């Protein structure tokens, strides 16, 4: 893509979309082949280090991978298509599409890799393409900063990932997932020592550390507390990118990774994960409440939903989490693309009316429902899916997770009241918040009047136009995917879903696991399904009512919204600033690191270099002393000998002064001495 000439840019982008479509069709075909069949695994020898097992790389295709393949390909295709319209007059068009291609490639790599090292490689590549795409408009300072932040924060997670890899490596000397599973099943914990089949032994804590390390990687990619700070900033990238990377696929890679290594985790790591997931879900939802940027709301909502998914994995609801991953991928992509459509339309509007305003700020929007029906439809459907209204996809998956969490709390607390119940409770509370912020956004964007038009006496709502057909088509496809009927015959009971029916929860094989933990979870979650559904329905209704009361068209909030400052009180500020996590990081990490760096440089300049310079100065002083000695003593001696030789020379010079008589004198003298010597 990057090397294709400028005039073929349209053709090239279509070609790449076409290739992705081909990939999507192939992946659907693969899914058909694979579905419920045995796992497909090929290995190629990659390289070897003497004395160690050979490192292999290959493809491991199981049900979840095949599904993920389809999701990635389809959404990628849709985003490609959407982008041909959305980005059509961007100067970096070719760059954009080549990076999009790179991203899709790397994402597929993560999905298919059979080897944690290879996963890590693609993991990083995905991070790279994310970096490149966020900084697409690189001349924007904020975009450049956001890209940097995204990558660096991800790196923090990656260090955890590497640590996890290292622990697995020293125990098992392999990264191959299937081999790891088998080896893990053969390892055992005795007396606090974790002994592997290969005879290596470690403290049992390292099993937990490995799990948490891997999870740390996922925390980075999937924007979990406390590493979620990068995701809202990443919205600086083009909207389709946000849809593809920062909502549907890449951020879900963390969840997918956790699903892949699910069997290797131990109970402590899982608990940790569940807690982090729940906290993130709650924090994300709170942060979404007071945002004014249409994309930021969605970004926080993504964080929150990702928190759900990881909580799902953590509580052992592996299948539910994956289910939510897939449904979320579609409806969140749809939301983002619809938001993109809104932004696009407002841009066009601004262009037409020569108005200058922030096309992403919800304070400028309103009433768009009438002029953008397709977009509205897509938005509405996916919002309902996100909130978890019955008949929509989100309902099925979210309820599955919540009932899993509830069951988990039951199991973990052993029917007694313990802190474990906080986790499902946070989940339920998040449902309320989700309903509030999503309805708020829906109201503020699509209902009421176009605030920018009414305030600035500009051309009215009539000037706003629906987006081009390509974008509309994409929105419709994604909107349709948000209906529950697609996923489950019985829209009220996820257990009827074809998805959950096929994905089986793999048995955790890490040593020290209570054998009946998983069966009990499943049993309990099936039993509590109805109560969970009831609770969550109640929550949604509560949220809906609150949202209606606060944000309905004509409410006080809505009327004053245009002039509203960013925050009105402390609570809003807390939400708006995402719990002040950024400042937190600034104070706790960035500032100290910078200070230490500056300090070290100063230390180097002032201590090490000064020490060395002082050393040099001392040396020079010593050298001077020595040179004095040299002059006075050594040179003195030399000078003396020179002086002596000079005197001798002067003395002898008189003998050599061209004075013949002196020569004669000397000759005679010599003669006399010789004779003397001879006759003596």
């Amino acid at each position: 893509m990057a090397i294709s000439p400028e005039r073929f840019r349209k053709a090239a982008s279509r070609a790449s979309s076409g290739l992705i479509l081909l990939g999507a069709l192939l992946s659907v075909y693969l899914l058909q082949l694979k579905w419920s069949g045995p796992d497909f695994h090929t290995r190629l020898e990659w390289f070897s280090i003497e004395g160690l097992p050979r490192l292999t790389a290959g493809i491991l295709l199981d049900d979840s991978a095949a599904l993920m393949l389809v999701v990635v390909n389809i959404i990628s295709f849709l985003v490609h298509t959407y982008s041909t319209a959305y980005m059509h007059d961007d100067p970096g068009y070719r760059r954009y599409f080549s990076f999009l291609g790179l991203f899709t490639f790397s994402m597929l790599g993560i999905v298919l890799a059979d080897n944690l090292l290879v996963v890590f490689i693609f993991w990083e590549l995905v991070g790279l393409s994310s970096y490149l795409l966020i900084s697409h408009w690189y001349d924007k300072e904020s975009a450049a900063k956001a890209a940097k932040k995204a990558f660096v924060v991800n790196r923090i997670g990656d260090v955890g990932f590497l640590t996890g890899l290292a622990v697995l490596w020293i125990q098992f000397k392999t990264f191959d997932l299937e081999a790891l599973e088998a080896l893990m099943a053969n390892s055992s914990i005795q007396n606090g020592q974790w002994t592997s089949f290969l005879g290596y032994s470690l403290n049992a804590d390292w099993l937990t550390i490995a799990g948490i390390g891997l999870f740390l990687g996922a925390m980075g990619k999937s924007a979990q507390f406390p590493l979620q700070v990068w995701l809202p900033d990443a919205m600086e990238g083009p909207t389709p990118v946000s849809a593809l990377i920062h909502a549907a696929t890449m951020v879900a890679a963390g969840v997918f990774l956790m699903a892949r290594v699910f069997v290797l985790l131990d109970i402590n790591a899982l608990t940790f994960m569940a807690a982090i997931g729940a906290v993130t879900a709650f924090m994300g939802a709170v942060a979404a409440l007071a945002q004014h940027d249409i994309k930021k709301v969605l970004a926080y909502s993504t964080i929150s939903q990702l928190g759900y998914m990881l909580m799902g994995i953590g509580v052992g609801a592996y299948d539910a989490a994956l289910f939510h991953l897939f449904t979320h991928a579609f409806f969140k992509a749809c939301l983002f693309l619809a938001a993109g459509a809104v932004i696009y339309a407002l841009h066009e509007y601004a262009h037409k009316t020569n108005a200058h305003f922030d096309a992403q700020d919800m304070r400028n929007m309103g009433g768009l429902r009438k002029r953008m029906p397709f977009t509205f439809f897509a938005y509405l459907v996916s919002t309902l899916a996100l909130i978890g209204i019955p008949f929509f996809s989100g309902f099925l998956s979210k309820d599955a997770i919540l009932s899993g969490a509830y069951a988990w709390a039951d199991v973990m607390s052993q029917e007694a009241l313990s802190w474990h119940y906080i986790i499902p409770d946070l989940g339920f509370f998040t449902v309320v918040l989700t309903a509030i912020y999503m309805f708020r956004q829906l109201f503020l964007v699509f209902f009421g009047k176009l605030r920018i038009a009414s305030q600035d006496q500009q051309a009215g709502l009539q000037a706003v136009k629906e987006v081009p057909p390509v974008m509309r088509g994409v929105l419709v496809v994604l909107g349709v995917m948000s209906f529950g009927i697609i996923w489950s015959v019985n829209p009220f009971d996820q257990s009827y879903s074809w998805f959950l029916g096929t994905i089986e929860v793999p048995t955790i094989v890490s040593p020290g696991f209570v054998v009946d933990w998983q069966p009990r979870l499943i049993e309990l979650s099936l039993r509590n399904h109805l109560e969970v559904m009831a609770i969550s329905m109640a929550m949604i209704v509560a949220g809906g009512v609150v949202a209606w009361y606060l944000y309905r068209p004509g409410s006080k909030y809505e009327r004053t919204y245009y002039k509203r400052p960013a925050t009105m009180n402390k609570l809003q500020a807390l939400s708006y600033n995402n719990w002040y996590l950024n400042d937190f990081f600034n104070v706790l990490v960035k500032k100290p690191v910078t200070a230490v760096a500056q300090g070290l440089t100063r230390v180097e300049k002032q201590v090490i270099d000064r020490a060395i310079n002082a050393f040099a100065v001392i040396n020079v002083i010593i050298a001077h002393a020595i040179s004095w000695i040299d002059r006075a003593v050594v040179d003195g001696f030399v000078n003396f000998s020179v002086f002596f030789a000079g005197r001798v020379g002067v003395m002898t010079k008189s003998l050599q002064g061209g004075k013949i008589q002196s020569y004669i004198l000397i000759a005679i003298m010599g003669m006399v001495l010789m004779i003397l010597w001879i006759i003596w």
Partner: protein
Amino acid sequence: MTIENYFILSAILFCIGMAVVITRKNAIVVLMGVELILNAANVNFVAISRLDNVQIEGQFFSLFVIVVAAAEAAVALAIILKVYKYYNTTNLNEINQLKG
């Protein structure tokens, strides 16, 4: 007269000639010293020839020495004149350049 006396005389003259050659600055005086030395040698030759009056070889030698001395004196004086023309002095101390 014992021959030692001749020898002693010769030695005295020789040493005086030598002293002249060494100490005097004037080239001509130096030449005189050289003549003295030659004379001292001649005295020896003659004295030796006294021991052997049949062949009188010593006297032959002294004759040749006188001849050579004469030739030497002539050439030496010519050179001194030439040098004097060049340096305007016969002081040996001032004549110390090899190249004119």
